[in-house]
């Protein structure tokens, strides 16, 4: 049988990553490439990363790129003349960024995107920043022109940064468009549907032939808050790269309850601090560790101080993967109180280390990690109760952690790749 030829459009990719997106993109590419012919276009690729079976095209690595066709998507003109444009967009913020300011931008009809016959090599320092939108538009125009004479059967995009490109390529070639949704603006922006990014996502999902959210939870958001036809949606849960778990002896007697993630509203860190306060009243021999940074960090540190938890709640700031593993190797409980979590890969990582997990019901990972304790993110009493049970009862903790091991067997990128291929098949049939 002839292999399906997939044109994949990615944004983050190791080692240039900001969050879970790049990790997922790598895991999927690796697994898919065993079954399909895969060409992956990235805004920026590091020469050090090369995959056996994947043709990686980093736009930054290209010599001059010839522009042959006109940009066909008339999507920009459909937008209103005046719209709200964030001056800084960091969809997967890891930096302690001040709040995203918005300003009104007057979109002049006369001002068209400057086009010359030749583009310079695609240059960019960071994947995000003040001009993320400009980068996204350039990525769309350049990659659309680049792939015109290539032979492929299906277009596969990852998140809004590459969706414009996907829509454009579909319009030019008529090939089916698959959108892989790792995260939606509705979630990131606390339910705000007023932004340009939301509009891009909505438009692209409407144009797409298939949408692959990383969980039913995210798929439901696409239906409920973007009005997308549920028949186009096929959720594909993330896998997790196998690690060899190890244990580290703690240099102190207290048990560790761990939070890993960006310290932003979406991840619910303030619920973690509230839970810490409740747990410590009953079980003082515990340390609550917040690993990560974000716009809520300072506020959270002050809340911890205000609640007199200074000696039992610790903030590590951003940590390397190795340090995260060291923490997991010491931890007794992993807690993920996310307000809204498309997936939540870190819970799977914790489970790999045998750490029992308490995860929010408002997460994708709760759909696959059956052997985790689940609780609504706002139900801090129940969350505290579960954590106390895990801290006080080692047998119970062991059972929870062992249950999760069964789930992990199914959480592989290979399984995700199989599901994706089925979607391709349907589209190409």
């Amino acid at each position, binding site marked *: 049988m002839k292999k399906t030829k997939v044109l994949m459009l990615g944004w983050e990719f190791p080692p240039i990553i900001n969050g879970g997106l790049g990790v997922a993109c790598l895991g999927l590419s690796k697994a898919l490439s065993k079954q399909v012919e895969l060409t992956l276009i990235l805004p920026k690729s590091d020469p050090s990363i090369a995959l056996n079976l994947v043709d990686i095209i980093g736009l930054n690595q290209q010599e001059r790129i010839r522009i042959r066709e006109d940009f066909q998507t008339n999507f920009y003109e459909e937008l209103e003349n005046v719209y709200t444009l964030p001056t800084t967009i960091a969809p997967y913020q890891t930096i302690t960024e001040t709040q995203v300011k918005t300003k009104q931008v007057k979109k002049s009809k006369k001002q068209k995107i400057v086009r010359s016959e030749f583009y310079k090599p695609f240059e960019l320092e960071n994947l995000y920043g003040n001009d993320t939108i400009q980068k996204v538009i350039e990525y769309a125009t350049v990659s659309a022109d680049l792939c015109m004479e290539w032979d492929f059967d299906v277009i596969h995009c990852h998140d809004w940064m590459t969706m414009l490109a996907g829509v454009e390529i579909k319009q030019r070639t008529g090939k089916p468009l698959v959108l892989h949704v790792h995260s939606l603006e509705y979630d990131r922006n606390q339910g705000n549907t007023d932004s340009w990014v939301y509009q891009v996502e909505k438009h692209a999902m409407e144009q797409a032939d298939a949408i692959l959210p990383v969980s039913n939870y995210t798929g439901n958001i696409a239906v409920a808050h973007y009005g997308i036809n549920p028949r186009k949606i096929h959720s594909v849960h993330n896998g997790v790269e196998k690690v060899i778990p190890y244990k580290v002896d*703690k*240099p*102190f*007697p207290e048990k560790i309850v761990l939070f890993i993630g960006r310290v932003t509203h979406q991840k619910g860190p303030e619920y973690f601090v509230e839970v810490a306060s409740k747990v410590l009243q009953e079980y003082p021999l515990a*340390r609550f*560790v917040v690993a990560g940074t974000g716009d809520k*960090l*300072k506020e959270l*540190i*002050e*809340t911890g*101080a*205000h609640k*007199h938890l*200074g*000696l*039992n709640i*610790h*903030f*590590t700031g951003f940590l390397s993967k190795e*340090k995260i593993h*060291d923490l997991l190797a010491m931890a007794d409980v992993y807690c993920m109180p996310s307000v809204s979590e498309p997936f939540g890969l870190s819970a799977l990582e914790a489970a790999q280390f045998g750490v029992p997990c308490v995860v929010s019901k408002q997460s994708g990972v709760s759909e696959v990690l059956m052997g985790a304790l689940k609780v609504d993110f706002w139900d801090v009493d129940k969350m505290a109760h579960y954590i106390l049970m895990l801290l006080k009862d080692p047998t119970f903790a062991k059972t929870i952690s062992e249950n999760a091991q069964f789930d992990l067997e199914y959480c592989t990128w290979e399984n995700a790749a199989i599901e994706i291929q089925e979607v391709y098949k349907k589209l190409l049939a």
Partner: protein
Amino acid sequence: MRSVTLCFQVHQPFRIKPYTFFDIGKQHSYEDEGHNKLVINRVSDLCYLPTNKILLQLIKKYKGQFRVAFSISGTTIEQFKLYRPDVIDSFIALAKTDCVEFLAETYYHSLSSIFSANTFIEQIEAHRKLIRSTFDYQTEVFRNTELIHNNAIAETIKGLGLKGMITEGIPSLLESQSTNNLFSPAQTSFPIILRNCILSDDIAFRFSDKNWKGYPLTVEKYSSWIDKSLKKNENATIYVDYETFGEHQKKNSGIFTFLRKLPGMLIDTYGIEFMNPSEVIDYHEIHSVYDAHETISWADVEKNLSAWHLNSMQKEAIEKIYSLEPLIRKMQIRKHTEKWNKLQTSDHFYYMSTKGMSDGEVHQYFSPFASPHDAYLHYMNVVADFELEVRKKKLFS
């Protein structure tokens, strides 16, 4: 007779190092030795040695007429002994002139006057002992950390047999009275010298400020202001960070020339004498009551405890370190007591201040940490480790 008292605060804390969660339980030394040594070396070369040299020359030149007082914290003297014994020698040389007074304070430049009465007294005694052994000098006059003061503190100091103390002259407490007099607290009779904050800050903060209407501050101008400020039988106390000379106000600002010329101008032109604090107390009568029913200090615009004890992080840090007191006293382990004392140094809490405006800038200028939150996190990690160390026996038994 009209006089001027010159007092210099010499203080360097044992700053703690960036101390992460991963250090807790493993790393039991908390000080950033490299950074502390660097600061001591820099300030010694820019300020302490050259200024001591100038003062010694002036004392010799004016044959007893020029006099100065120092408050040197215990943590500073310890660091001189560790890193710069030559600075100790230069202070000893000054002490031998009999024109230099050393003031008593808390050894660790702490806030113990507010948060632990017993520790307060112990730290004062430790400091007096240190000054005696280092400079062969018996202290008589007290000044609290950053001039923190209230009526109760004055009572405690009186009880220790000291003969007087120095604190900040706050206009609202003085009402219309001149700061250049000797005062007493409300309930008891005890001599209190007040710092003349205007004349002091003219040098300490405004000397190099080009936007200040007094700029440039010449010796002639400044001496005439002192002259104007002093009525008959009054004494103006000018009390500044010693680091003003060469460190805060750089050499090229002309601060050293200013210092060299000041005594001559005051003595010869205006007939103003120099008097040390203990002499002021001997010579002057108590003029009136200075009723500090609430705690004051010389720090920040508010001149109260808000530089160290305002936001939730500062309050939590202070609460946690002093909560260890019963345990420390019970254990009586010298190593632990010393670490505990060092963690009380007020600077740790000063770095955690989140004040904005010009006060915030001053806090940040002194801080070795990138932000108040960083200062707090590292400090609390240190205290977490220290608490483990202290409790160890109990926990693992």
